[in-house]
């Protein structure tokens, strides 16, 4: 694949820096040393290594970056972040890239669908009850995506969890859910990004 460098490469690069707290500016000082990719527990499953993603950002390959599954395979173990010789907040940048991918509508890319939808399902429960609800989340999510998984849940492990009283059948709901809802409503108005 040939890629032509445009005069003004990445707009995404600057957005990512702006949208990530901490020393995100250091992203521009990436040495391409690969410490992040070398440290990454799920690195082998990523279509591009984190280092490669940063090189692509630099080169302005914004679309390929947003379509890649890399951020969605980040397990947020923060190893890359503490080891990066340029102190780039890599894990936080991965979160920003996820949000960007959703905002850019690359959300339904098969590479990321699972992860994005799981996060979404999780958030739905939280927004409506104020608490997460493992069984519900897992069930709804699996039913939607891989019914097989749901079956596995319901039988095998799910049962064991239930039998040991480690899973709720019904979600718990916080008392002042309205307060939380209005807080989140306002937060959404203020936008996911700065």
């Amino acid at each position, binding site marked *: 694949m040939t890629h032509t460098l445009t005069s003004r490469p990445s707009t995404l690069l600057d957005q990512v820096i702006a949208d990530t707290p901490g*020393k995100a500016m250091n992203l521009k000082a990436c040495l391409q040393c690969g410490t992040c990719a070398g440290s990454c527990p799920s690195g082998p499953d990523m279509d591009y290594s984190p280092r490669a993603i940063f090189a692509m950002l630099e080169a302005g390959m914004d679309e390929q970056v947003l379509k890649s599954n890399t951020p969605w395979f980040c397990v947020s173990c923060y190893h890359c972040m503490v080891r990066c010789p340029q102190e780039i907040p890599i894990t936080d940048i991965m979160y*920003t890239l996820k949000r960007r991918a959703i905002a850019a509508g690359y959300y339904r890319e098969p590479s990321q669908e699972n992860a994005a939808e799981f996060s979404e399902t999780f958030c739905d429960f939280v927004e409506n009850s104020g*608490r*997460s609800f*493992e069984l519900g989340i897992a069930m709804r999510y699996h039913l939607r995506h891989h019914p097989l998984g749901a079956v596995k849940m319901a039988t095998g492990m799910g049962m064991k969890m239930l039998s040991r009283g480690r899973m709720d059948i019904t979600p718990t709901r*916080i008392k002042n859910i309205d307060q939380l809802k209005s*807080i989140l409503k*306002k*937060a959404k108005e203020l936008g996911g990004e700065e």
Partner: protein
Amino acid sequence: MKYGYYPGCSLEKNARAYHVSTMAVAKPLGIEFVEVDDWNCCGATEMIAIEKIPAYALVSRNLALAAKQNGSTNLVAPCSACYLNLKKVDHYLAENKQLKEKVDQALEAGGLSYQPGTINVQHLLETIAVDIGYEAIKEKVVKPLYNLRVAPYYGCLVPRPANMERFDDPEHPTSLDKIIKNLGATVIDFPLKAQCCGGHMTQISENTALELIRRLLKNAADYEADMIATLCPMCQLNLDAYQDAVNAHFGTNYKIPVVYFTQLMGLAFGIPANELGFGKEIVSAQPALDKITEEAPKPVRTRERGKQHTELPMPTQAEEE
């Protein structure tokens, strides 16, 4: 000492054992926990992946509630993910003005407000290792866990990231090792003590998760650990509940119980196992607990593997006492 307490969703049900044992050891250690009233989920690692400001607002509500509730300015979270989210949000609100302004508006919509820095977020491990201290723990031990080989497992979110003040090394933490040592158990030098348990990958890409879990189980088995001691509900869930799946997937046969370090403390303090949530684990801890003996073992050298009879001297390790 009085502490604010943020259990988090997991400790409500899935990690009940963690909650129960924490409360059980709190008494002898002289800790009083005041639960934050009507707290909400911290968003785990999901909310921040969808929308930024809502994610920060979600966590901030808890901080605001904790600050309003005049108990203590220390807020203890036993769950690693909750701990990191609370600490991180407090940290970045203090650092990032625009962020704070937006979050302020959101909280205001709920009639709340929060000043970053008001609450000092602690993980339970920090409270026990630093505030209480190893000596105080040792004093409370009545039933030492002699001959129990424990792999101390920290996971990711307590030791890392290091960009905010931390109480232990991000790569090679030792506080949990020291606690368990003081309980009389044998602590193995667990190389993967701070590696990832797979997090939410169990849901998204099971194969990825199972491989990560397998590595931990294998390494613990290689070091002949009787059990793994954790401090995080997610780690416990993945290592415990998915152990069968791992065995099925890789044709292995691991049976390594995964318990919370507070449960071990409780045992050593002489609290009956059933008051510590034992039995809730899927891989039973009983066989391992049966190994505990009355009398202390002969001093065994840790780190057998890799350390042959050395002709050339080994460099001394700074943190080795």
